[in-house]
């Protein structure tokens, strides 16, 4: 009972810090995902048309993904220095793979019979992309964005090590001062954020699934 009391006291006394860092955390996550989407979606569409190169591009992003996240932040410091920019670059690199791969897979998985019918009816390549390939691959893309978002919200906790703030700051302070309540006060909001985005994006994914292919 007592520890719960201490935990709530910590939240009340440190609420300014927690709220400020939570906003930073959200900001970093959003910006990283938005930029990753802007890079990955067009790239995914592009490589779906040049399938020979596709594995190469996906391979590069897969290699990025294998770098341990802490090490990735470390690598970037000598190049970009300390600060928000470094954190953003690392986060974007990390979010590329799920979005790129899902966009690419979503497009190439569209039944060739449908594409052939479209071509045969006299649709232009642009019309085939906009009216057939994109609507049918949208649920895949959204699934990729969801995976990337949940991942990013977690990884942002490491931004503290390059001085970019976020809830990682709260956790790190707690760890340094042996204050478990403070660690939890940073970690729980991160977990809640991840769950919340997972839920919301899953709803969105269902919404964008074309009516005719919902099972």
């Amino acid at each position: 009972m007592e520890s719960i009391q201490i935990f709530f006291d910590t939240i009340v006394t440190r609420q300014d810090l927690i709220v400020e860092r939570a906003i930073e955390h959200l900001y970093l996550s959003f910006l990283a995902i938005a930029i990753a989407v802007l890079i990955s979606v067009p790239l995914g569409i592009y490589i779906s048309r040049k399938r020979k190169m596709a594995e190469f591009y996906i391979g590069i992003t897969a290699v990025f993904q294998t770098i341990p996240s802490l090490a990735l932040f470390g690598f970037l410091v000598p190049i970009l220095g300390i600060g928000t920019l470094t954190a953003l670059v690392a986060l974007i690199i990390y979010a590329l793979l799920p979005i790129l791969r899902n966009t690419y897979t979503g497009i190439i998985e569209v039944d060739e019979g449908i594409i052939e019918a479209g071509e045969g009816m006299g649709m232009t390549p642009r019309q085939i992309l906009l009216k057939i390939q994109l609507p049918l691959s949208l649920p895949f893309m959204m699934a990729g964005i969801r995976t990337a978002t949940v991942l990013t919200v977690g990884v942002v906790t490491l931004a503290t090590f390059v001085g970019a703030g976020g809830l990682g700051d709260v956790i790190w302070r707690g760890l340094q001062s042996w204050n478990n309540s403070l660690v939890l006060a940073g970690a729980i909001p991160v977990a809640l954020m991840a769950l919340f985005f997972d839920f919301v994006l899953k709803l969105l994914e269902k919404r964008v699934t074309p009516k005719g292919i919902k099972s």
Partner: protein
Amino acid sequence: MITFNNVTKTFEDGTVAVDDISFTVKKGNLVTLIGPSGCGKTTTMKMINKLISITSGTISINGNDISEQESVELRRNIGYVIQRIGLLPHMTIEENVSLVPKLKGWKKADYQKKVDELLDMVGLDPQVYKNRYPLELSGGQQQRIGVIRALAGEPPIILMDEPFSALDPISRQQLQDELKLLQKSINKTIVFVTHDMDEALKIADEIVVMKGGSIQQIATPTELIQNPINEFVRSFIGEDRAKRVTKKREELHASTIMEPLVPEQVTGDVPNLSYHSSLQDVARVMLTKETETIIINGEDGKPIGVISHQRLLQELAGIRAGGAQGGIHSNLF
């Protein structure tokens, strides 16, 4: 009219898929391209709407070389039905059928009317099916939509690539019957690729038998059965089939010889008969009612075609419209 002039297709890997073929598909005819897999039948068909480019030679439609036409524009005026059906799963039946009319810039009221009309034609109630999605339909129903989608833009030519081969035998039979009736009543030029000889014999006005990229024989179903030009064609038809089909021909009925309906002919008191009536019945009614023409009704009782005195006599005398081919049917009557 579609004319192939010394058309050859060599793929990038050096395979000669189609080797110097020349033939003509007459307007209003249903021509099947048939042969074993790899014989070049599908390649031949896909060169007509430029899904596959020609290596040498020319294909012209009504005298216009297709290489001088814009592919997208050309395709909008050629219906296309494929084995995999290829309905757009995220669009309703109405949206699927109205795709080409929309691409061609029709007015909303016009294409909506067309959709209803076409759904009625294949026996699917527009009020029930219009707003459904393709995956809610059975395979046979889906391919009916595939066929009417190809008709929606009112193209004079329709290409069909093994459209019924993935369907169950009952749906396949039904769709073959419907297609045959349809083609007689709406007068389209149809190029139909198949590997099924029964199907070809049943629906075709003319059959083009292919092997290894070249044409073996071009003939009407009856001619093909009776005078296969070489051993390959003979074995491709098969002895059993030759016998069976000759027998079938004796049971010609009204729908096999009817011609497209011309509205002026329907005026006045013209007797009606079902598409399933025998030619004998047609002749009998013609004599007893002292009429020159008879309207033929489809399954739903609506008129779908017409048989004239002239046409009936020609058929019975074994003369095909457009030229004497005496002797072909002579042993049948």
